[in-house]
């Protein structure tokens, strides 16, 4: 029928329906005279219409009920599937049933997996056809071959694969009581199989021990390649109540799978990581027991797993260092962000081989991954490098991956660059076998030197070359080799300018990096200039909440801190904190910034604020890294310092001992971080009057710093200052004098004769020695010098300035110059009153001096003003 005719039919139908029933036929006959079939059709319409409501009115519910009433899986056993005859049931899993079957014509046995509840829409079934051809191409001894795949009449997919007689991986290991070596061997075989599949562009997506069978001869077979893809529900990503299509237990799922994002090669890397974890510890990293699916998923997305070495519990025969490397291996594979894992299974296998041969790994623990050039900032001014741990070589492929993962150019160019650099670094460190270097810093340096040479050859790829220069430069900087770092970072900057012009985004970042180097080199003007410029550019070129902006702000804060411009630094850093305090889990960058902000508050004398900021940073670091991590140690030291300032000495000692233990365990006994902790501990012990122990710790720290930095560096000067202070306290005045003089000399050289508040510190300390020797004029002169510098560098209202006033006043008192003594002491007193706890010993000393002054000046009323306040809190520190 034609639609026109249908139109006509309808028109007639409606017209006729409006007629009284009796007259309808007549009406129609008159209208359709020449078309009897039309008449007939319209009449039948009317007839149906008259019959009343039809099932169409009631909706499809009942029919649907009926049609869909059958159970989803056939309850009666299948006899045949495709060309295979079912011989028996092998097992049942969450997703389906596995039958043993054989092909009549070939006589060979296969396992057929029938996926119940796999609701495939027709469109998907079409895709499935294409897929299974690819899957059938996987031909590897460790992969169960897929022979055939199709759907049953109702659309249920089935897969016919190689029938493997073997035990699931974990059961096998348990039954044979496999040792770690054997487990690793199995693991390696598994990795190779996965790598093979990846080369054929097939991702497994559902790697778990139950998918891996081990035959009696110890060979592995991986099952179900690519099958999970068929089941993937492509739509809902937030749905926690998925059944059927979704993996039944997400315990092995990668974070991106839980989020519903597409799977990638790194998804399989994650799966391998979990398998390794379970092989090593006997447990899954995130235990479903006692948790709902939703909770489990959240854990996988947000929580860091316990390190395998921690989770393993019972005695394992490996050394601690071995465990450390296995931890790294496992956890690198299991990182939450796919881009931070091993880039490929090949990379994982490589590191596994390194481990098996007793060589250092390429991957490194989290610290370097996050911190790059902003590594652990000490609570005072010196920058301690995060250089190589005793036996392991610094930085590598993963390092690069992280650095370059910061989005800059287009994804393609970025990926290409990353690959080239990865290969570069691999070549670099693979060739390192031939190096027979003794100390590890030397080994690193020689490798780096080679690296630089090779980087130079990349003239035709300026972007890549720039990246390399910058990274290598950063490493040199960490090792304290500022000249090399300088050349490289400047080189990187120039390259970047040539690639994107002077106003480019990468250029800005390079400037900031270079600025930080300048800060380390104590070229503070240039440092500030570079960082400010870089910051301006970054602000212009990036959205305000971009990480590069807060990074640049942090750098500026650090430079200002190094200059002693604490108040300004605080303003800058507070901006950075605001930017980094986005909702969601805290980041290491936020901890860094909080720490820097705390340092500046400390240096500005705001101890309480500094304390709470350090506590925040500590909480974040604990959350991110666990309790035994060097970042936590830094926070502990900082808190210890503050506790010391506030007078809680034993608390300070406790904290610093904790930090020292962490650093020693992590870095070894001869490392800068350990030096840092030793200094802090020494200080704390000294304050408790345990001088010998304190001095011993300080000497150890000094030795380490001198070895790394040479004899002229702020870090060294600082420890020298401490030693001077201890000697002073013990009345070893000659020793104290020598130390303070050395300290001043170092700072003067370091700051190129310019004024810096550290010089004032040293000068004031030295003056104190002369005071004790009662060499008043000399002391007075030095205190005046110190005061000048303090005023110039820290401002007239600074705590240190106040203390200097008071000390100068005291010198004058001793010499009987009471009126000037009064003015100095009162000035100092007024400054301190605004800042410190009134029971502070400096204030007490000042009051004592003022009483003496007014007594001498015969002004008893004023003397009375400076009486000791009657209420003295019990917490007053004794004997400062």
């Amino acid at each position, binding site marked *: 029928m034609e*639609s026109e005719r249908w139109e006509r039919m309808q028109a007639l139908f409606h017209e006729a329906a409006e007629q009284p029933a009796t007259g309808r036929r007549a009406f129609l006959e008159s209208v359709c005279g020449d078309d009897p079939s039309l008449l007939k059709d319209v009449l039948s319409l009317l007839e149906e219409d008259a019959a009343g409501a039809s099932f169409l009115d009631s909706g499809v519910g009942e*029919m*649907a*009920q009926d*049609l*869909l009433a059958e159970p989803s899986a056939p309850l009666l056993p299948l006899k045949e599937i495709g060309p295979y005859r079912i011989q028996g049931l092998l097992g049942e899993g969450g997703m389906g049933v596995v039958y043993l079957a054989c092909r009549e014509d070939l006589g060979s046995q296969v396992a057929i997996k029938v996926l119940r509840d796999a609701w495939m829409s027709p469109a998907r079934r079409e895709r499935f056809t294409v897929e299974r051809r690819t899957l059938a191409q996987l031909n590897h001894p460790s992969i169960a071959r897929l022979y055939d795949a199709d759907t049953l*009449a109702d659309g249920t997919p089935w897969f016919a694969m190689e029938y493997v007689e073997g035990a699931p991986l974990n059961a096998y290991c348990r039954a044979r009581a496999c040792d770690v070596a054997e487990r690793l061997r199995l693991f390696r075989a598994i990795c190779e199989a996965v790598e093979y599949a990846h080369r054929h562009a097939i991702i497994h997506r559902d790697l778990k021990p139950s998918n891996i069978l081990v035959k009696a001869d110890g060979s592995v077979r991986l099952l179900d390649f690519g099958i999970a893809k068929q089941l993937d529900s*492509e739509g809902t990503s937030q749905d926690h109540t998925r059944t059927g299509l979704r993996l039944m237990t997400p315990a092995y799922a990668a974070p991106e799978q839980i989020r519903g994002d597409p799977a990638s090669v790194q998804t399989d890397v994650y799966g391998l990581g979990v398998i390794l974890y379970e092989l090593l510890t006997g447990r899954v990293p995130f235990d479903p027991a006692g948790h709902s699916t939703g909770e489990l998923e959240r854990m996988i997305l947000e929580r860091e797993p316990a390190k395998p070495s921690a989770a393993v519990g019972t005695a394992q025969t490996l050394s601690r260092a071995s465990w450390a490397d296995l931890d790294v291996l496992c956890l690198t594979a299991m990182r939450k962000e796919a881009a931070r894992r091993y880039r490929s299974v090949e990379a994982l296998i490589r590191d596994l081989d390194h481990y098996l041969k007793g060589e250092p790994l390429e991957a490194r623990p989290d610290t370097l991954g996050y911190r790059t050039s902003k590594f652990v900032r000490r609570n005072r001014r010196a920058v301690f490098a995060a250089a190589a741990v005793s036996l392991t070589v610094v930085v590598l492929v993963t390092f690069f991956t992280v650095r370059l993962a910061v989005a800059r150019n287009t994804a393609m160019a970025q990926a290409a660059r990353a690959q080239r650099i990865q290969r570069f670094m691999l070549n670099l460190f693979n060739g390192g076998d031939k190096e027979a270097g003794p100390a590890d810093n030397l080994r690193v340096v020689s490798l780096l030197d080679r690296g630089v040479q090779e980087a130079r050859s990349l003239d035709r790829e300026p972007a890549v070359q720039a990246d390399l220069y910058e990274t290598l430069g950063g490493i040199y900087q960490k090792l304290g080799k500022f000249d090399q770092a300088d050349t490289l970072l400047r080189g990187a900057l120039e390259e970047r300018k040539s690639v994107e012009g002077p106003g480019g985004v990468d250029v800005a970042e390079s400037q900031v990096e270079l600025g930080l180097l300048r800060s380390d080199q104590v070229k503070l003007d240039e440092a500030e200039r570079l960082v400010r410029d870089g910051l301006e550019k970054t602000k212009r070129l990036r959205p305000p909440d971009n990480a590069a902006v807060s990074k640049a702000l942090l750098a500026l804060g650090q430079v200002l801190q190094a200059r002693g411009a604490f108040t300004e630094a605080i303003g800058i850093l507070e901006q950075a904190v605001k930017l980094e305090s986005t909702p969601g889990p805290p980041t290491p960058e936020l901890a860094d910034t909080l720490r820097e902000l705390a340092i500046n508050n400390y240096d500005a004398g705001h101890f309480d604020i500094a304390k709470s900021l350090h506590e925040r940073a500590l909480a974040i670091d604990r959350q991110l890294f666990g309790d035994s991590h060097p970042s936590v140690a830094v926070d502990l030291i900082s808190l210890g310092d503050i506790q010391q300032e506030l007078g809680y000495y034993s608390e300070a000692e406790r904290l610093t001992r904790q930090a020292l233990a962490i650093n020693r365990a992590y870095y070894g006994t001869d490392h800068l971080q350990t030096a840092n902790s030793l200094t802090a501990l020494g200080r704390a012990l000294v304050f408790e009057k345990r001088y010998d122990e304190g001095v011993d710790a300080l000497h150890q720290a000094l030795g380490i710093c001198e070895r790394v930095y040479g004899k002229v560096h702020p870090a060294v000067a600082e420890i020298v200052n401490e030693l001077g202070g201890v000697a002073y306290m013990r009345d070893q005045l000659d020793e104290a004098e020598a130390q303070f003089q050395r300290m001043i000399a170092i700072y003067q050289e370091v700051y190129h004769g310019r004024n810096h508040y550290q010089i004032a510190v040293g000068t004031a300390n030295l003056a104190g020695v002369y005071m004790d020797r009662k060499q008043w004029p000399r002391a007075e002169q030095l205190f005046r010098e110190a005061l000048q510098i303090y005023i110039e560098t820290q401002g007239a209202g600074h705590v240190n300035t106040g203390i200097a006033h008071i000390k100068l006043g005291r010198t004058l008192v001793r010499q009987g110059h009471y009126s000037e003594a009064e003015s100095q002491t009162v000035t100092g007193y007024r400054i301190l009153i605004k800042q410190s706890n009134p029971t502070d010993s400096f204030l007490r000393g000042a009051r004592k001096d003022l009483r003496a002054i007014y007594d001498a000046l015969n002004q008893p009323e004023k003397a009375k003003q400076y009486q000791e306040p009657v209420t003295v809190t019990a917490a007053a520190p004794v004997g400062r």
Partner: protein
Amino acid sequence: MPHQGSPSSGEWAFGQPGGTPEERRELDYLFSLTYEELRRLAATVRRGDPSVTLNTTALVNEAWLKLAHSPRFTSTSPLHFKRIAARAMRQLLVEAARRRNAGKRGDGIVPIGLADAAGVAASTEEKLLALDAALVELAQLSPRQAMMVEARFFGGLDMAETASLLNVSEATMLRDWRAAKAWLAHRLRELQ
């Protein structure tokens, strides 16, 4: 009866003849999702309480609630979704009916609850398949009316929603509905 594949063959074309290949692909994809969701829901409902009548409207609503959060559905209006869902439901049921029929002829899975083949009344699956065939024919005559029936019957859309979907007045719709019903009833009688 030709296997009714995905609707990209132009059956979506009502109101938008053709559409770009990308649009059709997108529609296909949405359809796939909806289909699977509905089926899954239906199974869930069934497993819950087999005696409960399957309320397709509720099913469709529930499917919408779930899928609405999916990024692929952000530009889909609830009404448009229901349209897709109606088609998906139809497909679902047609396939179920076909399976049943095939089962009866002994082509593989033997389901439980086999309807008495010798019964006088037409079985549900035969009825549905006949309806499907008739709808295909109706679509040739009047795509709008076929869509209307599909939306109302399979999708559970009410009068107002259907009228809105088709962009006609309710009065027109009522007329169309009446005529379509009559025609379908007649045609079904012939087919069965």
